[in-house]
């Protein structure tokens, strides 16, 4: 009986920790939420994150605006796709989205932080899933702002460059089905590029190699497709390379001439991203950190 008073205070002080331990066997949700919170804290407090998110928006918007104001339509049926032009900045914005995603993984490897992370949260695939959720969330937000702004700029600028009803062009409007699909699809495209980059970064760990691989995968396909004249191989490259397939979502006119349908193209990119994330997750589990 005399021991009881001395035990009780100790039990009180450790009550919270014990409560956690009690919850552990069936606490999948909570663990997910805590992992997500931990990753959120890391990503939020890194000084680079906010600049990268801003850079996605600003660079996408800048290149889109430059493209919108450089293209003119002097005649009827001038073979231009205003939807695609107005979203050209995505080709640069994706590179910044790739940096954001790569650094979320490689940054931890370069400082050794990854060992602390995995000690605190041993379920590595959960950690990767949390990173994927946050990085794609950041990209979706930055991308939405950029894409909306780009369409708005194009809507204001392009009628002055001959994209008028007289030349067969309607005013760009988000309520137009094809424009809405192109705009929403471009936001999804950026998020999928971020996920693809995250998977590759988990696979190769080093940031320089990861970003080199991602940008090579994206930017080489249009160059190679340009010199491959065999129509069979040419259309194969355009259908299955992540960038040319994924950007099919931006087409708003003459869809029949596309090598791959808009949503099918985005599906190809999604398959690339899923394959990269699955491989990255598997390697993360099997390999020493």
């Amino acid at each position, binding site marked *: 009986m005399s021991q009881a008073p001395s035990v009780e205070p100790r039990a009180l002080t450790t009550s919270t920790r014990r409560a956690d331990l009690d919850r552990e066997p069936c606490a999948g949700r909570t663990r997910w939420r805590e992992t997500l919170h931990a990753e959120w804290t890391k990503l939020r407090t890194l000084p680079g994150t906010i600049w990268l998110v801003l850079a996605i928006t600003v660079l996408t918007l800048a290149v889109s605006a430059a*493209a919108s104001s*450089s*293209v*003119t339509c002097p005649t009827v049926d*001038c*073979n*231009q*796709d205003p939807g*695609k*032009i107005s979203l*050209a900045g995505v*080709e*640069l914005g994706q*590179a*910044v989205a*790739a*940096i954001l995603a*790569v*650094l979320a993984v*490689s940054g931890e490897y*370069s400082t050794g932080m990854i060992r602390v992370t995995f000690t605190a949260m041993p379920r590595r695939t959960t950690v990767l899933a949390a990173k994927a959720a946050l990085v794609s969330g950041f990209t979706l937000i930055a991308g939405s702002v950029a894409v909306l702004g780009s369409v708005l700029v194009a809507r204001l600028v392009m009628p002055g460059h001959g994209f008028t009803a007289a030349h067969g062009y309607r005013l760009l409007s988000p309520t137009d089905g094809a424009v809405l699909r192109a705009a929403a699809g471009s936001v999804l495209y950026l998020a999928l590029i971020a996920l693809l980059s995250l998977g590759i970064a988990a696979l190769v760990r*080093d*940031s*320089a*190699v*990861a*970003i*080199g691989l991602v*940008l*090579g995968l994206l*930017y*080489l396909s*249009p*160059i*190679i*497709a*340009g*010199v*491959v*004249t*065999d129509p069979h*191989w*040419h259309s194969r490259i355009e259908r299955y390379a992540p960038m040319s397939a994924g950007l099919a979502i931006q087409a708003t006119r003459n869809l029949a*001439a596309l090598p791959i349908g808009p949503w099918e193209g985005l599906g190809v990119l999604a398959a690339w991203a899923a394959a990269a994330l699955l491989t990255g997750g598997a390697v993360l589990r099997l390999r020493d950190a």
Partner: protein
Amino acid sequence: MSTTTVTPYRSAVHVGRDGFAQLLRAEWTKVRTVRGWSIGLVLAALLTVLFGVLAAVGGQISCGGGPDGSGSKSGAACRQVPPLGPDGEAVSDSFYFAHQTLAGDGSITARVTSLTGLYSTHGGIEVDAGTAGMTPGTQPWSKAGIIVKENTTQGSPYAAMMTTGSNGVRMQYNYTRDIAGEPGMASAASPQWLRLTRSGDTVTGYDSVDGVHWTEVGTAVLPGASSTVQVGMFAAAPNYTVTSQGFGTASAVGGPTLTTGTFDDVSLQGASAAGTWTGTAIGSDSPRGQLLAQAEQVQQSDGAFSLTGTGDIAPASGQGSGRPVEQSLVGAFAGLIAIIVVAAMFVTAEYRRGLIRLTLAASPRRGRVLAAKVVVIGVVAFVVGLVAAAVALPLGDHLAYNHGSYLLPVSSLTKARLIVGTAALFAVVAVLAVAVGTLLRRSAATVTLVIVAIVLPYILAVASVLPSGVAEWLTRLTPAAAFAIQQSLVAYPQVTANYTPANGYFPLSPWAGFAVLCAYAALALGLAVYQLRRRDA
């Protein structure tokens, strides 16, 4: 009191040398001993060759066959070899020729009183429709005039005086040479007089507005001309093309054209075998359409001649005539990405590991450290690029030839420039990556910035994503201008063609384009030295 001299302590160890050679050796040791970097450098060479081979094999040519594809052939059976000019270059040589044989020296004089034309705006023309569907008008380089030509074989040497659609009187010879004469277009009110005088293998061209006062335009040498040549009048009309550049697409519309030139006061001096003019359609077996072959003719009435012809006498323009050899160097883009990754890590890895503090402690003169790094990575990248290009160019071209492509002939000097230029491109890009890496200290940002600066403008300009005006400025002002060094195609002002980056024509000359990249690298390097000295490591 005795004075003792104290000898100051001197270490028995030899003083270490800290010259530039030692710095170079230190940096070379770093490059050599990091396994990942060695793999990256080998990968850069392999990727360059691999993608060059893929592009060559993927350039399979198919031809023939019906609409259902039956009976179609592919590969070497489809190779179309254009005629070759006296200097070995690919040429177009089809026109309508009213000619006589001239043995030995002599001259021909003619007065051109009009130049008219017809062109088709809708691609091909129907044989049944005749010339009814064609629009009247000449092309800028529609031409009619007098010509001295070795023989009627395509590609044989020639010299011609001609009046053109909107480029005045010209003297053109041996396909690539072009000299301007009197401006203005020939008409009945202001006819143009043309004369060619042959003496041995030299032909001199004259023009005149009145047939009395003659001005020498130029002199041509017909290499290896035999004593007997063909001399006469000709008419030719290059195809009408208008290219509309869509966003992500480029489409050329146009069609065949006809030119009719009217001549009078034609006189021929010299030993001529026949007194009559023979009409021959030169290169009539080349695909120019049945209708045009029917329309080509020479009519004679009262000493005046009316000649109608199509085709062109000019160097072959790049599109459709063959494969430019530099297409085998397309893998350089993949190789450059690998080089950029290695070169960036060469600096940023030192910052990440803290090795930079040791490096700068060992050699406190920071500018020299960066100089050593730049020299080492530049030389290494140059060697990698040289080996890769020296393998990729001949190998890719050989494979492309076997798969049915016709390779546009280039001199071995040009080939050497393509290979050495690619190596220099690798070296300068590596230097740029080291400089940017020193400035930013972060791998991901450095690699992205350099790749985006070099590859993205090229994609935007060349994968025909932007209008050609914007594309030209991109390939003029951004580091992507340097890819001009991989261009073997020559843009001729006397040939109307689509000279855009998308078709392999850069706005700057090869070395000027390369100088743009060098300027960017020098600027980045200057900033890097400044910052490296000023900042804490």
